[in-house]
């Protein structure tokens, strides 16, 4: 399977801190790759570096064969990379509709795509003209994901979408992400919820101290409790 995203020897410094210390990873076309690891391992920094929000100090990042490590964030987004940051990142002063129109970069919204999104997140239709800031946490996260998928993207970078959400909303979110997967999307997903990780992941990368310490299939990691404990300090069973 063709690699859509490839990182080779990527280093990122934030101030005097050396966060990413030579990341090598690939994300295969049409697959969901989970990026796991303890807090502070460098997962979010990896996504932000791919997105150009932090400049890689060394190494190569290529998207569909095209080098992007020196490109500005808007150019990377225009190449078809959708980014869902953590912490329910919506534009609070804009309405739900305006948030989505903005994500479509002012092109017309595709009605069938909208209906599909509303199928998963009916609240977005209900609060279509409400200010995003007045939505609940779960609704904000739905809007944040809807913003990334309102237009077809080559690659989705999603950072902890289930963080802080009620279990019922987490299930809806997992179903939505599964459906996005079925439609052939390529996803690099940072997740701390191992149930969600097991449900969604095809492949898995585990990070520690700014490097990739394990790569393989999600199914294999899910079945190997000692490996989970060694890599992550806990097991999937403990989270079920």
């Amino acid at each position, binding site marked *: 399977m063709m690699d859509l995203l490839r990182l080779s020897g990527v280093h990122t410094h934030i101030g005097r801190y050396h966060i990413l210390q030579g990341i090598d990873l690939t994300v295969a076309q049409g697959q969901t790759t989970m990026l796991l690891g303890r807090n502070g391992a460098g997962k979010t920094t990896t996504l932000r570096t791919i997105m150009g929000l932090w400049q890689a100090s060394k190494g190569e990042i290529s998207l569909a064969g095209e080098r992007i490590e020196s490109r500005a964030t808007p150019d990377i987004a225009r190449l078809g990379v959708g980014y869902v940051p953590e912490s329910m990142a919506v*534009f609070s002063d*804009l309405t739900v509709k305006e948030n989505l129109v*903005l994500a479509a970069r*002012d092109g017309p919204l595709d009605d069938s795509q909208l209906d599909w999104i509303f199928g998963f997140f009916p609240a977005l239709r*209900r609060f279509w003209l*409400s*200010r995003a800031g007045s939505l*609940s946490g779960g609704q904000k996260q739905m809007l944040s994901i809807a913003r990334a998928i309102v237009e077809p993207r080559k690659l989705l970078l999603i950072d902890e979408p289930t963080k802080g959400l009620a279990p019922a909303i987490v299930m809806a979110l997992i179903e939505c992400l599964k459906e996005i997967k079925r439609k052939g999307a390529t996803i690099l997903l940072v997740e701390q919820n191992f149930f969600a990780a097991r449900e969604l992941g095809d492949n898995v990368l585990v990070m520690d101290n700014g490097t990739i310490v394990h790569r393989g299939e999600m199914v294999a990691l899910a079945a190997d409790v000692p490996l989970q404990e060694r890599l992550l300090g806990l097991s999937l069973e403990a989270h079920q």
Partner: protein
Amino acid sequence: MMILSGDPPRSRVLTLVLVLIILALAATPFLFPGAKALNVAANICVFAALVASYDLLLGYTGSVSFAHTMFYGIGSYAIAIALYGMGPNWAAVATGIVVGLPLAALLALAIGLFSLRVAAIFFAMITLAVASAFQVLASQLSWLTGGEDGRSFQLPELLRPGTVLISKNLFGYEINGRILTFYLVFAVSALMILALLRVVNSPFGRVLQAIRENRFRAEALGFRTVFHLTYANCLAALVAASAGILNALWLRYAGPDTSLSFSIMLDILLMVVIGGMGTIYGAIIGATIFILAQNYLQSLMGVASKAASEAGLPLLPGLLHPDRWLLWLGLLFIASVYFFPTGVVGRLRNGGSDKSAGASH
């Protein structure tokens, strides 16, 4: 609704206040005879447009600029120098506009491209430095600008107070060139405010709001924020320069005190804050409150002080003495910021709206 670009005041009280202000301004030459009332009304019109243009920057992009009076001054000086040098004719007015507006836009473009790609504080500092330099330059180039004395000039014949367009016998009111100039100021200011309302309610305006809230998030959606911010800076500069042109035409004068001083910048900031940032309507409210207070608070206090004195009240006559008007003006602003932290418009709008559409679900 079309004329307001789908962004009505969204509050009955606010609508009523705005309608009253606009009607009062439009009828000033007939309702409030005398030069002072007309001056105050023209001042409100000019400042409403100027403050609205600043609101585009501060309220919609979150950029703090100290160069807004510089653009205002460029407009004022361009028209003054043209009319002074070429004589009181329409060609001079056109020359002032053709030179002043592009100059303001070019300077805004240069400042924007140079400083808007970095931290907001850097943009604020650059605008402060450039505005200070421009103020010194305007003062030093006395052969061109008239230095500290500024430039007085004559208007084209049609706009002069002595030109009677409709004699008093006809409607009981005389329409002269001065009143025509007032309506020119009123109409152009109104058009600029409506245009700004259109801008902030366009897709471009939504991107500006997104940038204000989180610039990186807007970039992650593919928006080149430097260009959006620079474009907004240029638009604001164009409107500020146009307001400067109107001010110079009204005063028949351009000088450092009336068009470049930092006290004007502070006034603009106060008007934006009092009226309500990020609303455009706040500019009209802020300019009206501020300029009315600036012009009438002193005389109002004189009346109140005299009445208190005649009533034999202790302490009050001294406190309300007209010489203390600046103290009361300051207190008025502190009170308005304290009681209306989102400005008058924000307060009136929030008063009637549901703040928690989905939070309870």
